């Protein structure tokens, strides 16, 4: 157990669950994640159904480069760890550490997005455009949807950081940190399936 000197006595241990409104938000967000699971699942199904229909474009094996994907995976996995550290700091009521971890999370998220944009540009130069084939359309839609979620998460967490600076750590702002962290983990979980199903299996299928 780490020391927690910053307990201000006002906030409960789990400030994100202190009010009914906050508990509603967390529950509602989990239900939303259930819906998101289906959303990504449908995108995965479409990709799985269409992945071998490459038309005139390159195959998955020719296209994907594992070192790049591995780097992206490591970045996102680490960012998931830093965001759970932020929640831990929240439970310790340590505002500075929390903001620090959230900033690291954002930076890693931006790094991931940078890699993904680089990767997409590279693929387009290889003749793997959005309109090339059913494989390319479903690939860009699935991975792009995930990327859009990452981008949304980066903006969201940035806004939450701003609010923590302005309003401090309260029972109103705490749920925002907690929910954005849950969202961020979910994005990482989806990525686990993307690197497995899209990239690694694409490599195996040759």
């Amino acid at each position, binding site marked *: 157990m780490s020391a927690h000197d910053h307990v201000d006595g006002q906030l409960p241990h789990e400030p994100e669950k202190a009010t009914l409104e906050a508990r509603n938000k967390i529950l509602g967000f989990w239900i939303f994640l259930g819906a998101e699971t289906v959303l990504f699942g449908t995108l995965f199904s479409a990709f799985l159904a269409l992945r071998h229909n490459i038309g005139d474009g390159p195959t998955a094996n020719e296209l994907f480069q594992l070192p790049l994907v591995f780097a992206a995976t490591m970045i996102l996995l680490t960012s998931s760890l830093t965001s759970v550290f932020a929640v831990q700091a929240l439970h310790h009521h340590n505002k500075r550490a929390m903001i620090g971890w959230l900033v690291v999370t954002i930076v890693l998220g931006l790094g991931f997005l940078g890699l993904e944009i680089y990767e997409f540009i590279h693929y387009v130069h290889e003749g793997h455009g959005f309109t090339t084939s059913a494989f390319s*359309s479903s690939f860009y839609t699935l991975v792009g949807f995930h990327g859009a979620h990452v981008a949304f998460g980066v903006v969201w967490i940035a806004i939450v950081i701003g609010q923590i600076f302005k309003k401090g750590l309260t029972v109103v702002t705490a749920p925002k940190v907690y929910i954005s962290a849950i969202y961020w983990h979910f994005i990482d979980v989806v990525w686990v399936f993307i690197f497995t199903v899209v990239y690694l299996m694409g490599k195996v299928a040759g």
Partner: protein
Amino acid sequence: MAAHGHTVKRYSGLMDWLTTVDHKKIGILYLIAGLFFFLIGGLEAIVMRIQLMKPMNDVVSADTFNELLTMHGTTMIFLAAMPMLFALMNAVIPLQIGARDVAFPFLNSLGFWTFFFGGLLLNLSWFAGAVPDAGWTSYVPLAGPTYNSGHGVDYYVIGLQIAGIGTLLGGINFMATIINMRAPGLSFMRLPMFTWTIFITSALIVFAFPVLTVGLVALMFDRLFHANFFEVGNGGSSVLWEHIFWVFGHPEVYILILPAFGIISEVVSTFSRKRLFGYSSMVFATVLIAFLGFMVWAHHMFTTGLGPVANGLFSIATMLIAVPTGVKIFNWLFTLWGGSIRFTTANLFGIGFIPTFVMGGVTGVMLASAPADFQYHDSYFVVAHFHYVIVGGLIFGIFSGLHYWWPKMFGRMLNETLGKITFWTFFIGFHMTFFIQHFLGLLGMPRRVYTYLGGQGYDDMNFISTIGAFLMGVGTIAFLLNVFIAWAKPRNAAGDAWEDGRTLEWSIPSPPPEYNFQQTPLVRGYDAWWKEKMDGKTAMTPAEPIGSIHMPSPSILPLIMSIGLFIAGFGFMYDRLIVGGIGLAITLGCMVIRSLYDDHGFHIEPEDQEKGVHA
């Protein structure tokens, strides 16, 4: 509106309705919008029936008929039936669970406005001269860019996408509400049956609508950005669309019918003055139907060529659904059995529902038999089947619910004589229109055709069917008349308007004050209000002392966010990406504003509560 000394601005008149986050007012908005689209869809149906009244008729052209057909189906399912269900959900659920509002009042308002602007966008296609004409299922390649190059299907794709956001938000909201906001003592197995069915329906919405979202995105990418999801020439798969559509589409029909089951359960039990027979089996049947509902989608695709194994499995799974449905039918019959039945309009619709829905269910089992389906497929038999379950099931249920809860929603009783005229014209008209279509189908008349040659034995039956459709129109007009007459009357409905109310909503005034319950009630058993009445009480036992009540603030942001999406939709449709970007920026900007400025709400103090602030 009572005057308040609070800092939150309170609106009146039109602005009150545009900014409201009160579930009762949002329910009324859903009802108005739903009825409006119901009339449009009904009008489209009447025009189609006029066209089919005699052989080789030329009231409308073949193209117009396709458009009418598509818009009738899409409008009725997404813009009429679902909003009217949402109207009843909003009006009743928080009251039935003893809550002051839903879990997310702001999202509730956002859900309404996105639905409304999505529906508006879809229907504006009539004025743009580019109407969706690929059927409500929008099968590719017919709906793809190659064979449908105009903007028609774009309206379908984007309109439904925007309306679908609203529906999804509603589903999440009601799930969270029912899980978290129940009054003390109201355990899950004490929930009124309507609340149970709405809970399960909300779950179906949450897990089925994202599938439609992805399907529509894929079709939109194909149409607007030349993607290849369904373009067979570039490796796409048109069967994939059918799967995606029906993985959503089949749960969708249970999204529609389960609330009707709930309404009928409440109405039949109230007007038999009996506890609902077999409550736990009803709950179990509802859950089972929802579960099986996700595993039968391919029965819409028997003739696609999935092979005998798949057809056989889906055949059996589909027939299985008849079991829990049968449980429900018998439970209603046993509830009626030995009860002192009152034949109010609501109960007439409820009792009319039972045999009608059974007929729809029986043809459903017939269609579930894959080999036989090859014969019925694409004939009027299918049209007759799904109108028996959707009109004879859902719309009867909605009419029943509207007559039943009207005094609770508006504080005014509907006229019973006019109500009975509504029922008998609509009921007879319905069976006249659709019963005969079974035989048209068996004789071989294909569905979705704009005309037919004379002398094939179709002529008289089509004529009778059209007369029936007119009769349904008369029934609808009688209902509207009833509404307008009631509107002019004073608000004098009693709290327990039917005197036999069983659930919590009847323990408070009609219409309820904006905070619903001055004191959160303590629930001591199933049929909470009936139990108190039987114990000689005249009010629920409160679970808290009288105190200041916290209310959410009204907000204009949901309306602006929906307008943003509406603008974005047009922008993307007509290749004006800047306009699309501006629209999305408006919506996202509103989200940021909502996040930055905390909604502290306001309080209604006990002295103001006495004034009886009405919705």
